[in-house]
């Protein structure tokens, strides 16, 4: 072989066959806290979605109801015993089952809201950033306005305004709608910023030179390159929605009883705080763990997706 041929062969052998996703995962794995967070999150999701199917109890069944009625006694909360691992709440319902069932509600709500808000926000941001002009002006003024609104009072007002019966899924769906209405604005700004700098880069020019339509450029070229900060924001938002739902349900503006959610379980455990303090602890703990683990995941994702610290627009 000539020297040139040899060098050529080496050039071919050199590059690693690692896809971007594999590279991201490899960098993510190095963050121990995030891996712990990931494990906790996976366990929680698994427990909440599969768990209620495994317990012998239903979240709404009151223990020994018939017996109590016979004796004309109100249902009582009990502490943990062999029968009910975490005891029962003030209405005699198994606490563990309610905790897991509540988790289903809280987590599912968080995931759905996050996915929808991020998708909407990304598309709005992509259009706004790419087209500029009056489209951008109008959309961003709407975003600016929504940002100025104080979220908690607005959530409460919206919640009251939308009738629960008109919507399938009742209070949970209303809650989701409420969160989505205000939640999409964050990622729209993120994506808009990224697209503003991306659209003038040479590969965007090359795509235009090849005859790609605006729609194709936004969807295939702009958004995939802008998606990294959105992924990070999404994971952080999961924790935020869980806490937000807890706050609203605690105040009575969220998931309505008898459906359990971590928020309204906290509310219900309030009056038992002197006799059964652990019943406050359990839902509080799950909210805390969810939020914390997703925060760790989000932090590590930010680093894994962009080791050079260029995630923000304008790099």
């Amino acid at each position, binding site marked *: 072989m000539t020297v040139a041929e040899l060098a050529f062969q080496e050039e*071919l052998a050199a590059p690693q066959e690692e*896809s*971007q996703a594999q590279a991201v995962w490899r960098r993510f794995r190095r963050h121990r806290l995030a891996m712990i967070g990931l494990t906790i999150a996976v366990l929680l999701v698994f427990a909440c979605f599969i768990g209620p199917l495994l317990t012998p109890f239903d979240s709404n069944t009151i223990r020994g109801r018939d017996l109590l009625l016979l004796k004309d006694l109100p249902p009582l909360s009990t502490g943990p015993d062999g029968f009910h691992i975490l005891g029962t709440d003030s209405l005699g319902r198994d606490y563990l089952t309610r905790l897991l069932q509540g988790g289903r509600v809280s987590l599912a709500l968080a995931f759905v809201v996050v996915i929808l808000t991020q998708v909407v926000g990304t598309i709005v941001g992509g259009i706004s950033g790419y087209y500029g002009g009056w489209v951008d002006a109008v959309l961003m003024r709407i975003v600016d306005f929504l940002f100025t609104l104080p979220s908690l009072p607005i959530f409460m007002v919206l919640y009251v305004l939308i009738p629960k019966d008109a919507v399938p899924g009742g209070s949970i769906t209303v809650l989701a709608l409420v969160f989505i209405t205000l939640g999409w604005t964050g990622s729209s700004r993120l994506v808009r910023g990224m697209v503003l700098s991306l659209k003038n880069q040479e*590969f965007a020019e*090359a795509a235009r*030179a090849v005859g*790609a339509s605006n729609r*194709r450029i936004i969807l*295939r070229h702009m958004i*995939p390159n802008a998606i990294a900060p959105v992924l990070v924001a999404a994971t952080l938002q999961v924790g935020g929605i869980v806490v937000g739902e807890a706050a609203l349900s605690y105040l009575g503006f969220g998931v309505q009883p008898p459906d359990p959610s971590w928020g309204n379980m906290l509310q219900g455990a309030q009056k038992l705080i002197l006799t059964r303090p652990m019943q406050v602890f359990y839902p509080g703990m799950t909210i805390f763990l969810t939020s914390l683990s997703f925060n760790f995941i989000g932090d590590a994702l930010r680093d894994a997706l962009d080791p050079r610290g260029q995630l923000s627009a304008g790099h």
Partner: protein
Amino acid sequence: MTSKDNGTGNLLEIRGLKTYFFTEDGVVKAVDGLDLEVARGETLGVVGESGCGKSVTMFSVMRLVGHPGRVVDGEIMFDGQNLLDLSEREMQQLRGNRISMIFQQPLSSLNPVFRIGDQVAEVFEIHQSISRDEARQKAVEMLRLVGIPDAERRAQAFPHEISGGQAQRVMIAMALSTQPELLIADEPTTALDVTIQAQILDLMRDMRDRSNAAIVFITHDLGVVAEMAERVAVMYAGQIVEYTDVQSIYDRPKHPYTVGLLASIPKLGEKKHRLAVIPGTVPALVDLPPGCRFAGRCIPRVEQELAICTEVDPDLLSVGEDHQVRCWLYHDHPPTGHEAPLATGRADEEAALRWAGTGD
């Protein structure tokens, strides 16, 4: 103006093109009254330094000039159709299909998050109604054609895993997928080292011979022009100042700017204390002085004490068979009220070529 005409007229004809940029600091006349022809299958070299408007001209043809720039006047006839009259949708159908463009920085011209095979396939997806798998296969074929070894496997690579030379081959593959009639190459080898440059030029020559596409080759490298072009347009400050076949540019350059450019190329074996340069800098296009745009840097003007050069902008006029120059040294009919400079044929060669004496 005669040019190689392979039958049914010129493929590209630009007449009186004016592209201005309306900036906060004033109107930048990046292209100011440009006429150009490219016949089918012909290779035209467009030469000039940075900022002379060569890229903007070609972007105007592709109608990719962004805000605050705008084509203000002129017509761009492609295969008999004025491109400036077409809708954006019709232009999108032309781009990448009948007219293709490749850029200076090949690695930046590729989308970093997609594999190169998919990016070549995208051209097929846009312009031909074929399935994704078929497009992928055709893409691999194109990669093979441009000399990427082990094309099937390399198509899975990401842009950050390939070299600049390979990236430019990928861009050429994308540009030639649809067998365009016109290929615009905007300094395709400027960012590559010399050995790779040679390979890419070989590839382009090979592809040109296969497809008979017309090529407009934009460059500031006169060596590349000598290798690739059949005809050459030299641009300065938004205008063409000399327009002729490649042999004449090197044997009989007429415009002082062209002479200066050629004189400034260092020759192997030559011993000098200083390199020859063209004194001065390109004028700011926002605030152009009246008269010839090169006047401020033109040694013959100073030597001959020509007043007309700073008063009236010369037109591009013929000085012989297939050779046009924009210079008062070669006009024998200046507008009335102005002193006739040297008539054609007298001292023009000497005046311009005196340039060669610069530098020691």
